[in-house]
Each structure stands twice: as C-alpha cells, then as structure tokens.
C-alpha cells in the first residue's frame, strides 16, 4: 500500500544539506519567529498546542499524545494502519468517531469531469441526458473521505502555533526558501490576513484564507490528509449516480439542478465576505458536506487543465493549480457550480481561497474491521495490558507516531 510510510523517508543527505543551507540563510529570522511563537503560545494549554517535534520528546505519555492529536483533529494520523494497530482500542474508537463526525465518506465510482454544454447546444439532441449536457470524461474515484467543512482559522492556528511553518518535513523541498515569506500582516508565520499570529476576532469558525497551495498542503500533511484531487472534489459535490438503465445522473449544484442564492454564499447572497463554515446548511451535498459551492474557492491537488473551464484550449503563462467551488464574490452562478474549474498561481494568497482536505479510505484503518480486531491481531496489547505496559512500549508507539508526523510527508 502506498501509504504515508510507503513514500515517507528520512531526509536524504542531499535534502538535509539543502535544508541546512536554507536554514543557515534564514536562521536569524526563524529564530526570531520561534521566540515570537513561544511568546504567543506562552500560557497555552500544553495539550492544545505543541512545539515542533514535541511528540518525540514526550514518549512516556502516550495517552496525552493521543489526546493532543485528537484535540488538534489529527485523527487521520492515528488511523494510519501502522499506528492504529498499536493503539488502545479506545483511542482508535475516538479517532474513528472524529473521522465520522468531521469527514464524509464518498463511495467509489465514476464522476464526469467536464464542463456544462451551452443551452443553445441542447437543441442538437433529441434526448436530453446528463452525458449530453456535459462535455467531459468519466473518471474513477476510489472510496475516500472528504472534510465536511473547509479548514477553519481555529484549526489552522493549531498548526501555526505548533510550529508548522518551522517544520521542514511538512513542506515541499522546492518551497523551503520561500516559507519564511509566508507571513501575516505583522511578519509572523501564518495566513496573509492574520495579525500577530492570529485571526480576526469572531472568525474562528470562518474558513482560513490567505494561504497558498503549499501552505494548504503543509497543513494537510500535518493532519495526515491530502488536498482532494479534482475528481474527488467533484464526486463529493456532484454525488453522481448511475441509474439501472445506465443513465448517469450528476448534480450541477450540490442541492440539485437550479442555482439558488439562498443556499450558498456567492455574490448574489450579498454577504460581502466569508461566513462560518457551517452556514448555509440547506446547500450541503447529499453526503453532508457543507459549502462545496460558495464561501471560498478551494485548492485542489491537481494542476489546472481546463477540463471544467467553459473555454477550450486555455493556456496559462505559468503552471497554475485548480481551484473549485466559487467564493463569496463569485458573480455568476455558472462559475460556482460543481463543474466549473478556475485556476490560481500556487503561491497566491488570496482572501477568497481556502481549502478542505481528503484522505483515501485505503490509507486508513479499515473502519469495518472494528476495534475488536485490534486486540485479536496480537499487535495491540489489551486495555489491561496497556495499563500494565511500561514506558518502553509507549515509547515505541510514540516514536512511530512522531516519525509519521515529522518525517513521513513526502507522498
């Protein structure tokens, strides 16, 4: 299985050398940042946030570590099979519970990635079928989970406060020299529109914006997830089905076939800015995913290919990333539907682009195996055994988790 461990490696010598060179160049600023961060987090609950690599330095308190990871909503890490197999059943149950609450299961199947045909072209067809209305190709999407809500300021602050911007293994190597420029209005690491390392009061449940594609990806690694692919995103939003007669049915908007201003935060909802991620519940998808349309554009893992763009043969001067879903300022409903694809530079930090995350089901501890399986596999001590287990056992598990968190991000 190509899991987080499969591709996760210790930094190679070359990588380490490059990292050290970058470090030497930016060390003074980063030291200042570390100092700022320590000041900013002074007095915080140690279970709330942690310093980078802190997990590795407190191996004896596995329960505390798991609690902290759950509190930081990093349950996907705990549900990696290699880790889940070593945890207490209660911990796995808690992680699974969080997974069910925070993410929606998207069944495997095909989704048509494409663009809607102009209504004027409909008359060419005697029988209107979804495949006539959409120009595109079906793409198979394996079973996966997708966040029910976009990542919020509060969630992202945990990443910032835990030193995510100082942890090289979370970032693409190519972007290392630029990470120190990913600062807020006051020069601290964080999203562009924050000040003094924190978000505007009252916006804790608003989607985090002002983050570029690399920042979104680093956060995804920190919580053990990924940015959704275009196909994953579209499948979660359109909820495609194949009827018994073979007809494909795929929704244009998460709620159906007509645009409605009251179901999504787009320009015509006249809110003029972002809303909390759980607003507009009437616009949720069949799978219970909120705001796939409106509020903020969402970064996806893929490059912009123009597959969901109304104009054919579109070129960008530099490679751009695909963004989907429209935002609070998207003027046309047709540009905020489940098909429409737009593009943005991966380094852009815009006020109307945020993200949500996904994870392939095969990367996680199989939920249907149940937690009972854990004990019978012999790799997991029973609860009683766990209580008796000495710090050496806990230390081994903690080290595994720490390795996962700090190293294994090069998928």
């Amino acid at each position, binding site marked *: 299985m190509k899991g987080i461990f499969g591709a996760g490696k210790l930094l190679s010598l070359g990588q380490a050398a490059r990292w050290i060179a970058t470090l030497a160049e930016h060390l003074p600023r980063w030291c200042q940042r570390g100092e700022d961060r320590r000041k900013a987090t002074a007095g915080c609950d140690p279970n709330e946030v942690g310093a980078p690599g802190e997990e590795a330095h407190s191996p004896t308190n596995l329960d505390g570590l798991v609690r902290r990871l759950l509190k930081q909503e990093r349950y996907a890490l705990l549900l990696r099979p290699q880790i889940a197999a070593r945890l207490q059943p209660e911990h796995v149950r808690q992680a699974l519970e969080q997974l069910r609450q925070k993410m929606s299961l998207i069944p495997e199947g095909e989704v048509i990635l494409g663009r809607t045909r102009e209504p004027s072209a409909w008359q060419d067809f005697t029988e209107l079928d979804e495949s006539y209305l959409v120009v595109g190709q079906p793409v198979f999407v394996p079973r996966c989970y997708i966040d029910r809500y976009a990542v919020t300021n509060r969630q992202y602050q945990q990443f910032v406060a835990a030193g995510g911007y100082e942890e090289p293994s979370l970032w693409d190597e190519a972007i290392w020299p630029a990470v120190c420029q990913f600062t807020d209005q006051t020069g601290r690491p964080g999203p562009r529109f924050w000040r003094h390392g924190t978000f505007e009061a009252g916006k804790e449940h608003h989607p985090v914006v002002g983050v570029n594609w690399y920042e979104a990806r680093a956060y995804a690694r920190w919580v053990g997830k990924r940015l959704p692919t275009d196909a994953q995103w579209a499948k979660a939003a359109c909820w495609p089905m194949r009827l018994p007669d073979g007809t494909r049915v795929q929704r244009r908007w998460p709620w159906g076939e007509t645009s409605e201003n009251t179901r999504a935060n787009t*320009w015509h909802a006249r809110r003029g800015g972002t809303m909390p991620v759980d607003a507009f519940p009437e616009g949720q998808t069949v799978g219970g995913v909120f705001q796939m349309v409106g509020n903020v554009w969402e970064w996806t893992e893929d490059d912009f290919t123009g597959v969901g*763009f109304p*104009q054919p043969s579109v070129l*960008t*001067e530099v490679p751009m990333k695909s963004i989907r879903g429209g935002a609070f300022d998207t*003027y*046309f409903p047709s540009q905020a539907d489940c098909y*429409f694809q737009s*593009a943005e530079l991966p380094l852009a930090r815009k006020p109307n682009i945020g993200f949500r995350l996904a994870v392939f089901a095969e990367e996680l501890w199989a939920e249907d195996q149940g937690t009972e399986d854990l004990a019978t596999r012999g790799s997991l001590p029973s609860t009683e055994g766990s209580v008796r287990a000495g710090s050496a056992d806990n230390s081994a598990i903690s080290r595994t988790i720490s390795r996962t968190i700090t190293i294994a991000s090069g998928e």
Partner: protein
Amino acid sequence: MRPGGITPLQSLRLAEYLLPVRCVICEAENVRDAERCQHCRAPLTFGQWRAESVEMVHRVGLLGAPGVGKTVYLAMLLDILGQQEAELQLLARGAFSLNLQAEVIPALARCEFPDRTPKLPELWNWVHCQVRRRRDRRPWDLVIPDPAGEALVDSLEHPLNYPALTNLFRRADAAMLLIDAGQLSSGCRAEELLAVKLLSQLAELAPAHRSGKCRIPTAIILTKADQCEAAQVSPAGFLRTHAPTLWYHAERRLLRYAVFAVQIVGGCALRQLPHNGRVVVPLRVEPHGVLEPFTWLIDHLGRK
C-alpha cells in the same frame, strides 16, 4: 366623422414634426425622423427628447486608453445597479440602453471578454438610464457613452473627426478616467501619458471654476486591480507612486477628484484560437470596488 375632422390632427402632427429633436450630446437640432444626430452621430432614439429636457440630462464621460476595460466596467456597473434594491439604482431607459449589458454580461459568464469597441460612433454603445436614489425626490436621467479607446486617442489629435467626443468633453457633468493598474505597476509610462492627455483635454474643454481648475467631478479608476494588490490597498498612494505625472495633473487641474481601484475578474489566462493567435480570457468574475467610483461621482454631481 366630419369630412374635415382629420385636418386638425394632421396639423398637429405637422407641427410636432417641425419641432426639432435636440441631441443630448451636442445639443444640435435634428428632424424628428432622424435616428442619429446629423452632427455627432449619437443616437436620438434614447428617449425622444423634448427640446427643453435636454438640459436636464446629466452626461458622464467614460475615458481611457484602448483595452483599459471601459466596456466591461460600464456593463458590470449597470448590471449590479440594475438588480439591487439599494440606496442607488440604475434603470435602463429603452431597449437600446440594454445592448451593452446584453453583449458583455453573457460573454463574461462564458469566461470571454467582449470584442473591442469599434471606432465608428454608430457602433458604440450609448447608455441612457434613470438614476433612482432614496434621497432624491424624483429620478433623473444620465447618459454615458462607451466610446472606443482608439477613437478617444484619435480625437485628441483630430477633434473634428469625432464631434461626439469633443462635445462630450465640453458638456460632460462628470467623468470617469480609467487607467490600467497592471500596466502602471509594470512601469509602462505610455499608459500614464495617454491618461494625462485625456485629463488635459477634459480640463481644457470642460467648464472651469474661478480658480481655473476644471470643475467637473472626476473619478480616476485604476482598473484590473486583481493584477496589482498595491492598487487595492491604497489607490491614491498607488497613483502617486506609479503615475506621478497623472497625479500631479489631477492635483493641479481638477477641482474635485478621487482615486479608486476596481477589479472585475479574478485572474486571466490565454486561449489558443483554432487558427493562429491567442486571446485573453477571464478565469472567473469577482467584481470588487465597482460601485464606489460611481457612487462618489453621483454624490458630487450637481443637480440640474
């Protein structure tokens, strides 16, 4: 009906026919049947003006270099103000005035920019609308032509070729001067100097205040602000830094002016055409700052 009963009616029609229709742009008198002003080629179809009502109409000049975004800005402005129940509303008068929206808005929804406005005045879009504000007792009329940028540039050298523009400069009650923020930020002086020319022409021809400054309110609009975030943060500061000559002229020659930044699209890409060539296409439409310049202008427009 008496055999002679028809005579007075014919007389009335004849009398009406003899009443001239005055052009709202150049105020020249035209015969009633004319569709366009014989002098400046502005359409006479928008509202069959009674001779005395022409003075009541406000004219706004939309000025800027070719490709600066005049047509897209005006269409988006009309579209936004034509659908919201807000303090300020615009109501198109006659189907003629909706042509601009009908051409531009569907194109933007398809992620296309409209074609360049042709140089011939007959092919320009002329918008005649009614301004409705809660604070005004009655609605009042506004005419905004959307001239081709090339025609504006030409008219600076050959004013007699474009009497509509010369008259617009002379009789405008307010002006919007558009300038491409992306070009300015890349250090393009040509864009700035052309804007200075237009501003200078306006200041020369439009009515002057006793201070010698041009007294019509002028909104300087930095377009394509999506390409230049500094313009969004501080439009006036951006103008002062990146277009010092224009800023200096505005300070010296305009009695009332303000600087605004406008964004219509959220990014652009190129589209390869089936044969040779490429065109710029908008990646998405997300208007910002569209209403502010116009609202400012309306607030500073003297009532007639």
